[in-house]
């Protein structure tokens, strides 16, 4: 699998919720290679903002050579993306990262957990995971997104911090309250949520795969900016550091210290 930088055509741009946007892009080389849990680097046009924005893949259409990203406007860079219209071009680099090891879910009762802007990568993951899937999605409030898409792929439970929709609280509150059972967890979301999920899985000896985030520069494993702490000495770094962009973003919960 070769990483490629290409200028991709924007096919559509749509706002899903407050500050949350969805963009479909046509890419000649990247979509055909990408797997769920991977991400792409997107470059702004503004020479004042040089670093790429790493954004996870929400949907991958291999045949159609299309990628969907669902992203939050977190600053000027992502704001620029949100203003791009269909037909405009955008520079992207990918596919990046390892992605979810789908085979680990085969034949198991899988819990797919997404929190906030960690929800989008779980969509293609859910689609490609065979077997029994329970999907738990956590939002801040009623500004939800991708709900329908997930409902088409499995049983969906929703938690909102303000209780406006589904269970009041976080994804773990939902899991406990709804007494959701599973054998393995695939999760992506903010660190506090992942900590809770890791703990929950450990208590039950469940396999648990976590997709992590950290500020990145190169996105390909060279700059060592986006490291996370690993439990043991990492073979590449020779210290207790793993590169989220290259060794991850997906790790077994027990591999990493959160």
């Amino acid at each position, binding site marked *: 699998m*070769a*990483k490629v*930088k290409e200028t991709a055509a924007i096919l559509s741009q749509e706002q899903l919720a407050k500050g949350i946007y969805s963009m479909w892009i046509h890419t000649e080389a990247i979509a055909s290679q990408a797997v769920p849990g991977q991400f792409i680097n997107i*470059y702004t046009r503004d*020479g*004042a*903002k*040089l*670093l*790429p924005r790493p954004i996870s893949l929400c949907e991958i259409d291999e045949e159609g050579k299309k990628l969907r990203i669902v992203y939050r406007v977190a600053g000027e860079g992502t704001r620029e993306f949100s203003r791009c219209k269909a037909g405009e071009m955008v520079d992207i*680099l990918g596919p990046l990262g390892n992605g979810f090891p789908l085979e680990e879910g085969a034949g198991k009762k899988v819990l797919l957990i997404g929190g906030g802007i960690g929800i989008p990568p779980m969509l293609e993951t859910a689609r490609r995971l065979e077997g029994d899937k329970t999907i738990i999605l956590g939002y801040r409030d009623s500004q939800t997104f991708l709900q329908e898409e997930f409902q088409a792929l499995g049983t969906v439970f929703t938690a909102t911090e303000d209780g406006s929709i589904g269970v009041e609280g976080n994804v773990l509150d939902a899991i406990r309250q709804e007494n959701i059972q599973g054998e393995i967890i695939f999760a992506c979301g903010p660190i506090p949520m992942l900590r809770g999920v890791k703990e929950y899985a450990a208590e039950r000896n469940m396999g648990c795969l976590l997709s992590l985030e*950290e*500020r*990145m*520069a*190169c996105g*390909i*494993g*060279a*700059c*060592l*900016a*986006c*490291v*996370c702490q690993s439990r043991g000495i990492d073979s*590449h*770094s*020779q*210290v*207790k*550091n793993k590169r989220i962009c*290259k060794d991850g973003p997906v790790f077994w919960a027990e591999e990493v210290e959160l």
Partner: protein
Amino acid sequence: MINMKVNLAGVELKNPVMEASGTFGSGAEYSEFVDLNQLGAVVTKGVASIPWPGNPTPRITETWGGMLNAIGLQNPGIDVFVKRDIPFLKQFDTKIIVNVCGRTEEDYIQVVERLGDEPVDLLEINISCPNVKEGGIAFGQDPKAVEAITRACKSHAKQPIIMKLSPNVTDITVMAKAAEAGGADVISLINTITGMKIDVDRRTFALANKTGGLSGPAIKPVAVRMVYQVAQAVRLPIIGMGGIQSSEDALEFILAGASAVAVGTANFYNPYATTEVVKGIFQYMEKNQMEDIGSLVGAVR
């Protein structure tokens, strides 16, 4: 017939373009994008006598036209480096420059000696990293310390040594002369400029290390100025760097007095930057009917 070959202390590079230490790993990651055979040299990430874990995250943050980094010289240590990274680079027809870092003079000497029998062409002694508590910049801001560490490394080195200078000084020429007095074969500059960013919404430092090294096109004018000053002050060949992202940028450094140039931060946003610079310099020479890149070095005074 265009000649892009440059000679650094007896080592002939096929062209003057390399990348800056710390922006290219040890070449493996970028070899997916660029043909390392096309580079004059590959400069490795800084390596120490033992593995270093580096700083806590966040380690980087974007700034206007640049970035701050405080990686803290995370590196796997010389043992694994020699076993894994040097053999990887030996597959390519390019020169190997190893960036050496340490906390004490002994650290530097240990790595320098260990590399003596390795197939390495040049050693770049990093006395200018602003992101480590001991060592690094501590050696690079006092001329006596610069001369002493240079002499110590030189006396134990089998390869020619490049002293990498810090821009965080009042007079860069004083540091360059100190390195020359200590026996340096080549001078490289600039390392990053110490900077800080504050997140006004969270009311915290953007970097866990509070300060970081500023790099990118934002600092290029400072780098060009210092390369020019050093070129007037010492006789040593200079490797110029600091915000180079295009062949025009590289040529600015060469015209200011640099014999070779390094592409740094630009690799992060354009993985093809290094080879694009090689190509652009060639086209510039072609367009201006120049035969020897040497005629461009220091041509603007």
